[in-house]
Structure formats: structure tokens, C-alpha cells
């Protein structure tokens, strides 16, 4: 089943971007994690009829994509794949909220359309921030940063192990599915009866594997935690990065920059 393999490829592709060298990649992971969080909070704190206010925040993903040398098309593609839920729930807004809020020439624009647009904008901005965080930092470095930020170690170790074994077990699952499909030429999709014994088999293999891994870890001196080789160091550049962006977010939150710019140019002040 090529779908599983392409999903795996996708997963590793995003993390592989973190191996690049760029000013953004060199920053301390903690600075990037905190900035991404501040960004997400700023985005969702805007009112639901505010479409122009959050627009300047686009600068954050755009600047990071450019400075971090990330492929924009690839990231946008991931966004589009993930969009259905927000789209499905958001699309009711134009239907339910029809009070006209503004006009564009002869066109009445209802509040529903504006809040729908705002949902899409929020969706795009927040998810882009998450994808960029991984693509510029790498998953293990994010886990390391989380440990340093006092997230329980049980969770961060679990995240690292999960990430490590997703590839192993998904590969195993993909091979099992392929073996089945080669023997069941006429079936297009797997019947649930087959699926449950296949999943059970995969589960048994997973349990055995966990036991082997545990023994291997014990023989290497494992005692409940994973120690990073690379120490983290917060420098001036990291602090500047986090503070400058947070300052920008606060500025954007309190001043509607597109409106001020528009007034400046059109010369229409109250």
C-alpha cells in the first residue's frame, strides 16, 4: 500500500529539513519553542471578525521560511491535506451568520464570510508555525527543549521513543499489508476480519520488540531517562530572536497595522 509508505516518507521529510544549516536552525530550540507558542496564542487571541489585524503575523512564517531555507510549496501542501475539519466546521459560518458587516463596492459582506476567512487564516498561521518549528528544529531537539522547560521527563522520553519506533512499526505494518495484497489480488480494500488479525499480529510483534529493546537498553545502562549528548546553550542571539518576535506579536495585537497603513496612504483620518 503506497499510501503508508508515502506518509512515512512525509514524516521523515519534515524532520530531515531540520538537518539544514541556517541562522534559524542554529538557534536554541527553547527559543524557537517559546516563540512558536507565543505566536499561536497571539493568533487565536484576535476577535473572530478581525480579518486584517492578524495579517502582519504572516511575517513570522514567511521570514522563517526564507531565512530557514524551507520549501514553501511542501509546507502549504501539508496544510491543505490537514484542512478538512476546520473547513467543514467553518463553512457553516457564512450560512448561519448573514448579518452584513461591511461592503465592498456593491457587494454586501456578511459577518459569516469574514469569520470564515478568519478561521482559515488562524488555521493556516497556527499550523504553519507548528510545521516550521519541526522543520527548523528537529523533533528530538524539540523534545530536549521541552525537558528543559520542565515538561515531565516521562512524556519527553515517551515522545522520543515513539518517534523512533513509528518508522519501525509503520514499516512493519506496510510490509504486512503488502504481503496481504499480493495474496488477495481481487480485494481492493482489507476486510475488517483480516484487519483485526493483522493488527493483532502487529501488536504481538510490537510487544516482543519492546521486550528486546528493554533488554538492549538495560544492557547499556538504562535507568529511566535518556541523556542528551548535546548541551543546550541560550545565547544573546536566541534571546534576541525570542524577544524581538514576541515584541512584534504584542505590537500587532494592539495596533491594527493594515488599517493604520491604509489610513496613512489614503490620507483618511477621522
Amino acid at each position, binding site marked *: *500500500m503506497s499510501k*503508508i509508505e508515502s506518509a512515512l516518507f512525509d514524516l521523515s521529510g*519534515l524532520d530531515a529539513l531540520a538537518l539544514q544549516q*541556517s541562522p534559524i536552525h542554529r538557534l536554541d530550540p527553547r527559543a524557537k519553542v517559546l516563540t512558536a507558542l507565543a505566536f*499561536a*496564542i497571539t493568533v487565536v*487571541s484576535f*476577535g473572530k471578525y478581525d480579518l*486584517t489585524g492578524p495579517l*502582519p503575523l*504572516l*511575517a513570522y512564517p514567511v521570514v522563517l521560511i526564507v*531565512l530557514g*531555507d524551507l520549501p514553501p510549496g511542501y509546507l502549504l501542501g501539508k496544510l491543505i*491535506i490537514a484542512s478538512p475539519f476546520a473547513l467543514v*466546521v*467553518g463553512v*457553516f459560518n457564512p450560512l*448561519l451568520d448573514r448579518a*452584513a*458587516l*461591511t461592503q465592498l*463596492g456593491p457587494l454586501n459582506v456578511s*459577518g459569516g464570510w469574514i469569520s470564515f476567512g478568519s*478561521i482559515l487564516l488562524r*488555521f493556516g498561521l*497556527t*499550523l504553519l508555525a507548528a510545521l516550521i518549528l519541526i522543520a527548523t528544529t528537529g*523533533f528530538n531537539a524539540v523534545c530536549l527543549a521541552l525537558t528543559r522547560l520542565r515538561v*515531565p521527563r*516521562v*512524556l519527553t522520553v*515517551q*515522545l*522520543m521513543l*515513539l*518517534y523512533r*519506533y513509528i518508522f519501525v*512499526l*509503520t514499516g512493519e505494518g506496510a510490509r504486512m499489508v503488502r504481503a496481504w495484497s499480493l495474496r488477495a489480488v481481487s480485494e481492493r480494500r482489507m*476486510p*475488517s476480519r483480516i*484487519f*483485526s488479525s493483522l493488527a*493483532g*499480529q502487529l*501488536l*504481538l510483534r510490537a510487544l516482543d520488540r519492546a521486550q528486546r529493546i*528493554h533488554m538492549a537498553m538495560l544492557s547499556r545502562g*538504562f535507568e*529511566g531517562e535518556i541523556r542528551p549528548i548535546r548541551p543546550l546553550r541560550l545565547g544573546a542571539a536566541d534571546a534576541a530572536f525570542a524577544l524581538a518576535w514576541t515584541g512584534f506579536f504584542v505590537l500587532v495585537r*494592539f*495596533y491594527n497595522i*493594515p*488599517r493604520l497603513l*491604509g489610513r496613512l496612504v*489614503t*490620507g*483618511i*483620518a477621522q
Partner: protein
Amino acid sequence: MHMADALISPAVGATMWAAAGGLIVYSAHRLKAELDERKVPLMGVLGAFVFAAQMINFTIPATGSSGHIGGGIILSILLGPDAALITIASILTVQALFFADGGLLALGCNIINIGFFPCFVAYPLIFRKIVDDRLTRGRILAGSVASVVVGLQLGALAVVLETVGSGISELPFKAFVLLMQPIHLAIGCVEGLITSAVVSFVWKARPEILEMATLAGPGTGRSTKKFLASLAAVTILLAGFLSWFASSRPDGLEWSIERAAGKSELAEAPHGLAAALGRVQNMTAFLPDYDFRQSQKPAGRGVAAAAPAAAPAVNVGTSVAGLVGTALTLGLVALVSVILKTRTQDRAARQNPFARS
């Protein structure tokens, strides 16, 4: 069923983050006290198993549509509720970061919806009560279906409450509930059957695994109940506090924004392109105030037609200014990106003449 960042308000997101964070710290604490470090690799590998199993689609009998497996109950059976919750939280984090499923702020909601309800409500109160240390095929079937269905129903209800509570989406509570619950009832039945089939398979092939897991912690049920009560109290407290905080706060925020914006309006009044755009504004006859935050929402939905005529504060031109400003902002962002791009490329070319241009 993943909640999305786009649909939640900061108050709801923060409340759920606090609840999920507290839950994770609590579970991590209990796991540490348990001192069973065999579970560390087991959790990692089983989390990966759920991930892998979710990628395999199968046909739902009689419908022909495809479904996938949910992991909360299976993980609780094999690991116990604490480790299962942490494992689900880790799966959701990976999905949020890599597949853009949900988002950073909605992660708290998702951990509660997808992790808490199956692991801490459905598993101890339903599965354990039905299976009750005596494993039979029928009990596994009944326990799995009932607990998966209940877990999913509660999770779906939580999605509705979080969405409606945030007020970003216009969907009314009743319609959304009527949409979500039946869909998740159907999904729950299928998932429950599959869960029971997988668990029975493991039980038949390797009975000792299940027997060990189900007999391991008879005491967990009781302390979970006590914990549930305290968690409910904390959540209600938090929700009350945050909602009060959130409802009083925006007014203050709006007020300060208005003041700030009002000041800066007076500050800049260059009469540049005004003449040309003045005609455009006269043509666009009626422009209600652009500041939607202030005007909240026009009172009734039915009075849409009457609303423009009734709007008192006519601020001609803010709409045009808004559009021009939007275009300018986007242009500025694009300009910055182009400048940065050329600069980084120049530097790359200087450092490495063979780099891609």
C-alpha cells in the same frame, strides 16, 4: 475528530491545556511511583503500534466505507490508564507537529477528548467493570464495544462544548450535537468491534499478556475514582476562574486598543492620495464601521437587511483604508521575504560557489 486551533478561543485553549497538563503531571507522577521501567520502551513501541495501525484502512462490513482503529482502550488494557494517557498525549503531539492534525493550542483539548475520556473514564468505569478479571470472549466483546462507544461519545460531546464555548464557529449547540453524536456512535461501534477482535486475538495467541495486564492493578480502579472527583473539582474551578478572567479581560483589551488606535489616528493625517480615493468612497455609498470587534455582532440574524440602514456611526473610507492597508501589509511581507531571500542566496553563493542558485 481532532480539535483545531482555528476554532478555539484562548480561554478554552488555556483551560484545557491546564487540565491536560495537570493530568500528564499526575500520570507521570504515578508512573514514577510505580517504578516499572519496563514500561518505558513498551509505551514507545505500543504508541508506534497505534500509529501504524491507524494508517491501515479496512472496509467496514455492510457499508463499504473505510475506517481506522482508535487506540485509547487497547492502550489502557495493555499499559494501564496512566501510561496509556501519556502514550496518547505523545501520539497527539506528533500528529499536531508533523501532520498538522489539530494544533499547538488545541493539543490540550485533544488530550482531554481523545486521551482522558477513554483512559480515565471509559476504561476503569466500564471495561474493568464488565471484564472484571474474568476474561471470556463475550466479556471482552461487550467491554470493548461499550467502553469505546462511551469514550467516543464523551469525546465528541467535549468537541462540541469546546467549539461552542469558544464562539468562533457559528454552529449552534443543538445542531452540532445532533451532527456529532450519531456519527461517533457509528464510528464507536465499528471501533469497538475491531478493538475487541484485536484484543481477543492477542488473548488467544498469548493469554499471559492480557492476564498479566488485567490482573496487574486491581487497586487502580479505586484511586482513579478519587482522582476523578478531584480532577473534576479542579477543572470546574479552573473553568470558572478562566471564564471570568476571559470575559472581563477582552473589554479592557478592546478599550486599550481603541484608545491606542484613536490616538494614532489623530497623529497621522497626511492628505496624499485622498483626492483620488475620495471619489471611490463616495461611490461606495455605505460603509459601516470597519471595527467589528467593537460592534460585536449585529443583534439579530434576521435583521440583516435593516442593519446597514440602522448603523449609526458611518465611517466612510475605513473599508477602503482597510483594503489598501491589507494589500500594503501583504506587499510589505512579500518585499521583506524577497529581500531576505536574495541576501541569503548572495551569502550562500559567496560561501559556496557551487550551491544551488
